[in-house]
């Protein structure tokens, strides 16, 4: 077609030396993303490895929930179930954090975020990446990103536990029901964001109805798909909002557990 009518030797690309010709501050977004992610990773690692100050009745840090090791702090009503025995030498957070971590690592939004900001592949649209070759998500380890849906299933279970935690938050420090503190509010906001993020997952959208060819034959699933699709449009915003709310909940518990602050009771 087009090429066949050209008489000359095969044409080549424009020999523009610069890696890009963008004049805007294209580096700002990836830099900000990298900074924010690194901050969170730093904070979360410290907290997850510390194995301390994660419970302040009635609140449990979401990093340690459910707490599945025998070494967990006692919590009345849960969520500590000693599925893992004394042999586990490390922080109990690490047992469970694998799942939300995996969920976010394989998330279609976070993938974009870290490919762009950490791996510069590409750093921004129209800006050349520095790597000599590129194979995408076709080889190990990146091919593992295809396991996203399993992490979604696991994270949905964990979100249920976090919901349970939030309900437990309607107690006071003496475990009496019918009370609410600022922490309860914080946990409520957090659980809404966590669910919104979890349900806005592209794998969830696929499971709800995306895999169907004919919506008209599955009206209920179509309704669910439509609803999830609306959330999926905000996946990035929800990813950040829920990340921040998780961090804040943990920080709040830490501050309570270390007696830096006390939980203001609403009633």
């Amino acid at each position, binding site marked *: *077609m*087009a090429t066949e*009518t*050209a*008489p*000359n030797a095969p044409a080549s690309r424009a020999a523009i030396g610069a890696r890009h010709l963008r004049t805007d501050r294209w580096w700002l977004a990836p830099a900000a993303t990298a900074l924010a992610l690194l901050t969170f990773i730093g904070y979360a690692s410290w907290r997850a490895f510390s194995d301390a100050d994660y419970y302040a009745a009635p609140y449990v840090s979401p990093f340690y929930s459910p707490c599945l090791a025998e070494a967990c702090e006692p919590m009345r009503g849960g969520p500590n179930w000693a599925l893992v025995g004394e042999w586990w030498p490390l922080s109990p957070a690490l047992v469970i954090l694998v799942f939300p971590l995996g969920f976010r690592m394989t998330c279609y939004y976070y993938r974009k975020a870290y490919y762009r900001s950490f791996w510069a592949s590409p750093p921004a649209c129209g800006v050349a990446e520095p790597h000599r070759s590129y194979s995408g998500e076709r080889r190990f380890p990146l091919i593992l990103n295809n396991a996203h849906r399993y992490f979604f299933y696991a994270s949905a279970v964990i979100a249920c536990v976090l919901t349970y935690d939030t309900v437990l938050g309607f107690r006071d420090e003496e475990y009496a029901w019918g009370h609410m503190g600022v922490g309860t509010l914080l946990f409520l906001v957090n659980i809404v964001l966590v669910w919104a993020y979890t349900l806005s997952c592209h794998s969830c959208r696929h499971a709800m109805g995306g895999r169907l060819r004919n919506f*008209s034959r599955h009206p209920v699933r179509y309704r669910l798909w439509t609803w999830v699709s609306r959330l999926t449009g905000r996946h990035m915003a929800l990813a950040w909002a829920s990340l921040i709310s998780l961090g804040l909940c943990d920080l709040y518990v830490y501050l309570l557990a270390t007696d830096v602050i006390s939980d203001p009771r609403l009633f």
Partner: protein
Amino acid sequence: MSNVARQTWDVVVVGAGGAGLRAAIEAREQGLRTAVICKSLFGKAHTVMAEGGIAASMGNVNARDDWRTHFRDTLRGGKFLNHWRMAELHAREAPDRVWELETWGALFDRTRDGRISQRNFGGHEYPRLAHVGDRTGLELIRTLQQRVVALQQEDFRESGDHEARLRIFQECTVTRVLTEGGVPGGRVAGVFGYARESGTFLVLDAPAVVLATGGIGKSFKVTSNSWEYTGDGHALALLAGAPLVNMEFVQFHPTGMVWPPSVKGILVTESVRGDGGVLRNSAGRRFMFDYVPEVFRAQYAADEAEADGWYEDPEHHRRPPELLPRDEVARAINAEVKAGRGSPHGGVFLDVSTRLPAAEIERRLPSMHHQFKQLADVDITREPMEVGPTCHYVMGGVDVDPDTAAATGVPGLFAAGEVAGGMHGSNRLGGNSLSDLLVFGRRAGLHAALHAGGLAPARRPRAGDAQVAAAEAEALRPFGGAEQAGGGAEPENPYTIHTELQRTMNDLVGIIRRDAEMAEALERLAALRARAERVAVEGHRQYNPGWHLALDLRNMLLVSECVALAARERTESRGGHTRDDHPAMDPAWRRVNLLCALPEPAAGVRLTRRGLPAMRADLLDLFEREELAKYLTEEELT
């Protein structure tokens, strides 16, 4: 000669819009080796600009619709000047052509019961336009393009070559149809053209050529047409010895954008009005009620209440006058602006924002929403658009046989789509052009295939070297323009001539015409033609836009002359031809077609009259006598 690539094909289609691709698909399906030549990239043809829909009386929304109703509407729209046989074939075959698209993967908007949805449009009695939002043309072209690819994939499986039997020569321009012996009226022998990107010449030898090059809008200053619309097919036919018919009828679409200047003329789809948009002047008045002509009084609402009722309950209300045929609406807008009741930028207001909820507007008119937002900073869900008439379509074109699409007088030459004349009479209804492309594109492809297939290889005409050399010399002339001009005359800039041509046609042979102005236009055109002989271009042949324009000028000038000559001759007003000095429609003129021909290329275009064939009795019976009386002469009625 050595630098002209020469290939042999069975059928060559010039143009890859709706008609061209449909013709090519048909010819290939008939088993013939088919080549398509187009000026743009494959899939970019002007058909993508069509917004409203494809008119076909499938009766999906209103079961009472049938081909007879469609036929009636088409003739009313064309003020009975249509070639009745074309209108009949068109109305009968359009539904099949639309359904066929679905089997090639087209996805039209649907009705509740899963059929193809149909929308209302100006001049159509029932909802009739199959559509996809307001990007129907894109869907059409993409479907045909993908059908071509599907056929190529089939050929690849069989022969290992995608292009064995169907090939697209994209970004190539045809400058001559070659004929046997190089004489006008000789049997078709192929085409001569050049590849835009390299400037190299090519000859495709073929006994059948289908012209599907679209229209002529680029001869006018304010137009909705793309740069490709330089009347190539019209001119190629003239030069090959085939006459053009009805060239005086040029449709000005009532609603083009008027601001900002750089987009002036870009189309605002009629669907805006079909879906409830209304026209207002600067005083806020829905002025269309003042412009319902006598012949349409019975079908159109007399007041706002009745008109508004029609959108919900068309059974018991007459149609809003915004949905009158395009010529009526364009004239009305023109009159309002002239009377000083126009919008700030010289148009009128088209408002859909107060008629539909914002979400509904975005769903039904997405590309209009996008277009105004992006190009004019206007949010059509909140504020009215400013619109005015824009040159949109030429009803006239190559005179063809209705059944075979064969051009008159040149064996082996066929024409379909906008480049063919007769089908739409004096004015085309919205939606009828996409269906026209499909119906007559297929017919042209079929009959071109039959023509080519019926010739034994040895009996095929072949263009001699002298003819090819002459075509080559003609194409290269602009590079030596200055020397050839001789006599010390200054070389001319093609862009300047083009601008002057556009202004001449727009101002003097535009929407409202007068004898003296057209006489002046003809004088100016003659002068421009003389100057065009001296056009000179710089640089090389590789993708040189100045050179391309210089070659297109020949076509635009020829076609413009036909338009001006025919328009001056027809002393009545009808459809897309409005004479200030002859404002009435004259039944005597209805029986006359004006034909433009080029018997002696040097002597210029000549005009002849021909009687319009009388309509078959059973078709005539589809109309009430009272209605016919408005159009036909006493003699015809008895």
